[in-house]
């Protein structure tokens, strides 16, 4: 039965994927045809086929720039998860802390974080630190807000039930509030990972040292649009893989029906 189940899941996934993939393929064909039919210059818009060719001919260059982007993105994301979740938990558990700190958090959230990139360069230089910190500040807020909201959404009756069985504050947090917050935390993680990618790319634009963001700016300077589009394609793939990893982790951890569909 279990095998059958697995089979049917794979089949359902395949059935779901057929439609979108067919449409994507159709759009690529239309793109290809239009570029050729109207004789669009390669510097304006290369054909999809040309982009694929560029990815294969420049794969070493692309790979060399993919790794720093990915690792710095993960580092910034990791910091945002640890510190953001920590702050979200503190805000939810200590009302005094919340009333004094949360207004500052909200005030800082209004600042367009991307605009901090030049300032970070002044403070932390052109290296990894500036880029990681920019990814961190962008991915940080969804983590804080979602963790906080998740803990606060705990049913008061559930807490009363725990008290009835002599649970202390720590037990209530670990066994009731935190598990209750997990679906919210995962929606924060999904927003956070995409935000972290944005942060790294913007930082790479500005610091112009290495990474796919740097490669995009470099290719643009040389009017090498096929390379620009190739870097963009690889970047999208990196983003998709990171997002899929978070979704896979979510499926692994949240095995119950939590009645929320936040995807």
């Amino acid at each position, binding site marked *: 039965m279990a095998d059958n189940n697995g089979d049917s899941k794979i089949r359902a996934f395949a059935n779901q994927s057929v439609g979108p993939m067919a449409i994507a393929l159709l759009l690529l064909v239309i793109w290809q045809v239009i570029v050729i039919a109207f004789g669009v210059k390669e510097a304006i818009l290369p054909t999809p086929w040309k982009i694929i060719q560029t990815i294969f001919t420049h794969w070493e260059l692309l790979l060399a720039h993919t790794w720093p982007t990915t690792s710095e993105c993960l580092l910034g994301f990791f910091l945002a998860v640890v510190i953001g979740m920590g702050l979200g938990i503190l805000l939810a558990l200590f009302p005094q802390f919340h009333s004094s700190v949360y207004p500052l958090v909200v005030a800082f959230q209004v600042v367009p974080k991307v605009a901090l990139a030049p300032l970070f360069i002044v403070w932390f230089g052109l290296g990894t630190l500036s880029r990681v910190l920019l990814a961190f500040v962008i991915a940080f807020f969804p983590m804080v807000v979602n963790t906080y909201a998740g803990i606060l959404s705990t049913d008061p009756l559930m807490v*009363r039930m725990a008290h009835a069985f002599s649970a202390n504050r720590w037990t209530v947090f670990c066994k009731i509030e935190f598990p209750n917050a997990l679906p919210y935390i995962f929606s924060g993680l999904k927003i956070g990972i995409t935000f972290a990618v944005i942060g790294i790319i913007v930082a790479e634009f500005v610091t112009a040292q290495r990474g796919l963001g740097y490669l995009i700016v470099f290719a643009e300077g040389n009017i090498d649009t096929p390379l620009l589009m190739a870097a963009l394609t690889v970047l999208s793939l990196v983003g998709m893989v990171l997002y899929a990893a978070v979704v896979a982790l979510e499926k692994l951890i949240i095995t119950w029906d939590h009645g929320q569909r936040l995807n």
Partner: protein
Amino acid sequence: MTNDIVHVQVKDLRKTYQTRREDIEAIREVQMAVGQGEFISILGPSGCGKSTLLMIIGGLLPLTSGSVAVGNEAVSGPRRDTGVVFQAPVLMPWRTILKNVMFPIESLGLPPDDYHAHAHELLEMTGLGGFGDNYPSELSGGMQQRVAICRALIHNPNLLLMDEPFSALDAMTRDTMNQELLRIWEEFKKTVLFVTHSIREAVFLSDRIFVMSPRPAVISEIVTINLPRPRDLSIEETPEFNQYVAHLRAAIEH
């Protein structure tokens, strides 16, 4: 009282809630003496403060004045020898049925290994033997409330507090649950305080019924139910049963 050992003693209990505009008197004066192993119902109209009374006895709400003692000890907070069943099952959706039942063992800091067998035994007894590894969302409302009863019994409490546990269930499921509850009670002989606004339910289950007046609440009458045990649903057809029901209906309306 059917036996001499007092298990739960409530004296001169008064409870007022402070709201921003005024003080609301929820319970004016309640006296109760409940014997060891008695099945007691607290019967009254909605909003009369009967749930408040139960929560005070369970140590989950503070009292304004008077005293509550369980087993000669003044109640100052939740007690380890008390099990509580709420109106809703309040199961944790992220835990399997078995792990939900085991929650009190964890929160009380008892060794889980010593209670696994008991958990399985309780699930078996309530007809949930095959559902230990299921999640609450996969069970019906009646089954979920049975899980809540197992959870309230897992740490072998000698006092069971039940706050309108079957009021959310349909009439047929409710009849079944009442019979099952009596069967469990016959087996364990714990003291039960059962809050309800259903007269028939109270008569069917109880040794004695404490009738509460509308707010501010006092105990307006104590009715001893002299119906033979063990009871099953056929008892509801007897004239004696219906005399009790008629008497209590009159008592609540006046």
